[in-house]
């Protein structure tokens, strides 16, 4: 009985914290889906939270896989939580070949959106990181351009 009460207390303490975080991210996803534009349809979102890079290690990266289909046009919209400095960057890989990144290393310009006109059906890997290895929280919404 005591055990059940302990679990209940732990659950009651933890639950509001979890739901608040979830609600905030849901809101960011909805906002981000809206930025994709009128002629798009939402397909998928990726919620990314990463810590600040440590001095002698590579910047943290979150990887995800997604099938993209030939003859489809996809839009990757990137949105950031105002709580952190880091701005979300997506890099799209086909196997081990980098196709495109929302951060242009040569100019230093960062884009909040990438359109990908897909001509090859397959599994692509998305690498998410935050600018300058900063701590960050953001979402990437993948939409189909109609």
């Amino acid at each position, binding site marked *: 009985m005591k*055990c*059940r009460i*302990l*679990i209940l207390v*732990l659950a009651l303490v933890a639950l509001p914290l979890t739901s608040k975080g979830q609600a905030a991210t849901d809101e960011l*996803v*909805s906002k981000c*889906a809206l930025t994709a534009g*009128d002629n*798009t*349809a*939402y*397909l*998928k*979102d990726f919620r*990314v*939270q*990463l*810590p600040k890079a440590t001095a002698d*290690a*590579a910047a*943290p*990266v*979150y*990887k*995800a*896989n*997604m*099938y993209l*289909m*030939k*003859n*489809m046009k996809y839009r990757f919209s990137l949105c950031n939580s105002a709580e952190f400095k880091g701005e979300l960057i997506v890099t*799209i*890989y*086909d*196997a*081990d070949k980098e*196709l*495109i990144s*929302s951060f*242009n290393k040569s100019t230093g310009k960062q*884009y909040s*959106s*990438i*359109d*990908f*006109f*897909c*001509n*090859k*059906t*397959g*599994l692509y*890997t998305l690498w998410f990181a935050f600018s300058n290895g900063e701590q960050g929280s953001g979402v990437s919404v993948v939409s*189909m351009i*109609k």
Partner: protein
Amino acid sequence: MKFDSIKHFFYICVLTPNLMTGKIARLALLFLLISVCSCKVNNRKQAELLFPVIDSATIAESEKLSKEAIADIVQNVASPVEIAAMLQSLSVPFSADYLGSTKGVEQLSTNFQKATMLGIYGADLGYLNIYEKTGNSIEVVSSIKQLADGLRVGQFFDYETIKRLSLNKTDIDSLLYLSVSSYNKIDEYLRTNDRGSLSALMISGVWLEGQYIATQVVTSFPEKKLKDRIGEQKIILNDLLMLLRPYKGTSPEYSNLYALMEQMSNLYRDVKVTYRIAEPQTLEKDDRLVLIQKEESVVEMSDDELRKIVGLTMEIRNKLISGE
């Protein structure tokens, strides 16, 4: 690790109260207290636990597939919205004949049936929404709600809002967003709560219905783009089989479905997907970065192979719908 420990403790405490005696209870409690205390002692560590695992491995290393990685890959396999949008772009008219019947949903008794039908109706809903036939979708939406409740995932399907948006017909974008994101949430919840077998069934249902609609349409509209899309499913089908494989021995229903999907995979054996290599073109337009991929996937599939795939797709899908 800590979460797993607490979850394990929860099972011991709540689900198996008779076992909570003597040493087991004291050990479990001690383990929990150590977990909780270690969180307090090292706040920095706790903060790190909130984040996804940092992965700085190469792609090749990340492709060594764990069960979780397979699920992660396959979660994006089936997008009925994309198939429907393709049909619409080819000016294929809408047909309600392709949709699964919603009669008898309340009589579905097993989780196997509920999960596969949840997938099938999800694909139908995507098809209806893309064609803006939202008035026709109320029955499908109600059936989805019923099935989701039956699988205890009804909380992720915003029935009232989806129903209202469907009836109003004014905000298709929001309707599409809510419908698709509800399915994504259901899938994620099932996978992260040790109910991956149901997620695999739902994903298979979505994929099969998308494949069914595409193969039905191609018999009347033999467009090359559509044939190619059906042929390209060879790539995805292998991953679907990987997803279903761990559960194939769990019930006769699962075993039958797996055998049929293997048959489908065999039909695809001679379908060839090759690639024409070319460098992509990158440009900037309206402050957006645009990538135009020039590399191309090319499908070679004979009419006979297509005919067999059309036939088997119909057979599997109809078996699932009739509950055979």
